[in-house]
């Protein structure tokens, strides 16, 4: 693992622990707000997207018919990862908060701690491998010599 990969891998959980530490700052402080908002908007999603990246990119996406720009599909994939990072984070925040509220165990700190632990766990998971394409045997007409 290169140092760059290590940084990418550990950045989301670090953001979570940083947000937890920022709770020590006074309420309404911009630093506290930035640390919390940034982690909630991107942290859990970034960790999940990193784990799933090989499987997510195993197959090219649908794209336009015209192929003028060779980098177009790559840029679209990048935008897609960014979108997933945001929406998976939002989804995770809503799900964890709802579960805590529904079970009468709600506290904001508990929610942040849960998300940080899940993000840390994801950081230690190996990347999810893409399922191999189905084995296709070349059809041989009956009776033909191989």
């Amino acid at each position: 693992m290169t140092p760059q990969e290590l940084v990418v891998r550990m950045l989301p959980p670090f953001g979570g622990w940083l947000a937890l530490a920022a709770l020590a700052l006074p309420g309404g402080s911009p630093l506290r707000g930035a640390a919390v908002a940034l982690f909630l908007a991107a942290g859990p999603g970034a960790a999940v997207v990193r784990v799933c990246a090989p499987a997510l990119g195993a197959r090219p996406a649908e794209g336009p018919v015209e192929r003028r720009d060779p980098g177009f599909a790559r840029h679209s994939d990048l935008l897609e990862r960014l979108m997933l990072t945001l929406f998976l984070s939002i989804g995770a925040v809503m799900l964890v908060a709802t579960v805590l509220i529904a079970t009468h165990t709600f506290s904001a700190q508990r929610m942040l701690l849960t998300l940080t632990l899940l993000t840390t766990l994801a950081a230690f998971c190996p990347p999810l491998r893409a399922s191999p394409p189905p084995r296709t045997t070349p059809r041989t007409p009956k009776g033909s010599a191989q």
Partner: protein
Amino acid sequence: MRPPVTPRERSTPEPTPARDGAKTSGSGPETASQSSSPSSSESSSPAHEPVTDLSDLPPARPGPRAVAWPGVPLLVALALWAYAMRHTDISRLDDYGLVSALHPTFWAGLAVLTTGFWFTVRDARRPGAWSAAYVLGLLVMERATQAVLYPTPLYAWAWKHEAVIDHLLSAGGLQSADQVGDMAVYDQWPGFFAAQAALQRLLGVDSATMFMAWWPLVSSLMLLLPLVLIYRTFTEDRRLIWTAVWLFYVANWVGQDYFSPQSVAYALHVGVLAVVLRRFGRSAVRRGRPRQAVWTVVISVMIVAIVISHQLTPGMLAVCLLALCLSRRYRDWVPLVMTVVIFLAWCLTAALPFLSAAMPDMIRSIGDVGANVETGYGATPTGTGAIATSWAARLLSGSVLLLAAVGVLRQRVLRHRARPLLLVAAAPLPMFAASSYGSEMIFRVLLFMLPGAAFFAAAALLPKVRTLAAAADDATDAAAQETGDGRATRPATARRWAIGTWVPLAALLGGTLVFVPAYSGKDRINYFPPQEVALVRQLFDQAPGGSLVVAANRNYPDAYASYGSIDHYWFLDDARSHVDKIVRDPAATLADDMAGVERPARAYFLLTQGQLANSEMNGQLDKAQLDRIRASVAASPRFRLVAENGAGWLYVLKQSGGAER
């Protein structure tokens, strides 16, 4: 006909404009153009193959001055906007809302921004990031203006959602209708409120009012990535992508971007569609590479978040996915089945109490299209300003839908290539027949049609999209004309250029400027000055548990504060006969209505500026009638004035038995 999606299929000719029909049936020039290089325009010199469309230009390497030029109008527009923010006086809003209050430099800034955007986006030599920067500039000018100008958050509904968050935080869990009455519906779709409750605590602020004014900007930004991704699935043309994004934001005046569950659920809905359109097509399956199961897991997280947050959005998502299944290219039932199963699972468990109570009405409204699109009493724009802004909104929506229809009819190739998007745009229409959704279905249907409609509306403003084969033929024809009588075609080309430049610019300018009255033309109703907030807070600070608040309607800040312990009676929601009785004999009728409250609880009568504006501009009681009601209460010995300021009055009903406080 199924669209060509694999490389092999792409090499076969697509349906082309009539004159190309015979030419494209041969060996397929697209094959040649694609196999030789990514683009025919890239490989060929413009000197040999004249350019007929700016998108055919090869990626140029302009000098730094040309690259930076689009920044000038953008900065000028933002400077004009900043100046307007400092010089707009919102202390006296009239029936035109923010429109008449805005400083003229705001309109100049919007015009400069739109013009700069159009001349930037249509020039293939400009880096694509400039178009994105212009769209961000538009979002700031459209969605942050109110947050900058008004000292308090807009919309009574946003204040209501803030009350729900407060309630969740104080209750610490979900409650049933036995405990909180009708408001229990929010406890049955708590996703958004639970997340916001956590955010409020984590930020360490007293209430969500500290940040909810900025929510329209935040929720609009959330839509940007999925929208761009959807459009990039069907075209590489940057002009089409960014003009469609621009039109989407301009046409999205419906006002569902405020602090609400639907704002987040809608962004997630567009996100799911983006993933399905990009990853659930059948071309790769046919190439022997099945879709990775991880994509199903990814969209399931987003679908669950939608389902636990909002009632209508899962239904809209299901009809859109069903419509996609109608095309052979996207006949994958997994997303649809998953949406329906998750939605049903939630409805039959957590949301069952609400649904079982509401089901008879919902079943009755199915198929009653007339009643479902009717607006009803209390929603009729009244007064010149309200009518004008209401028509501005209709004009804007009508124009975008008309442009979309023109785009569909005119752009044959695009219609074929982007048919799935056409299906997604049309899918919400049958929901008219399903429910009235509190007289709001027409607006919601429009909102869910917009991603697809904006794409085809943008296509109507841009040159015709040609198949690669037709483009090659056009280039050959143009080269032949250039070597022949080139002078004869120049005036016609110049005329085409002028029409193709100025007509779309006029359309974009018109739409962008009309957005302002459509979106903020009713701010006299939606804005609550700090005095009004202070008066209502004074009421809730002193009201004992079990008290009753009587008001004309619910259009005031904090109307739902302490809804677990304070009751409300909004008399304009009552039967017309009773409203008439209140108008005839206000003090006596209201005192009788409020008489059932027993000590230590109290009965309050609250009349504020927001209630007056809402009643007057929506065709209920006019100012004279409400003034008469207030004067009657003020003169009545049964009421006592508790507080008043420039934004309203608060009275309490004197109670018999015991000393009056």
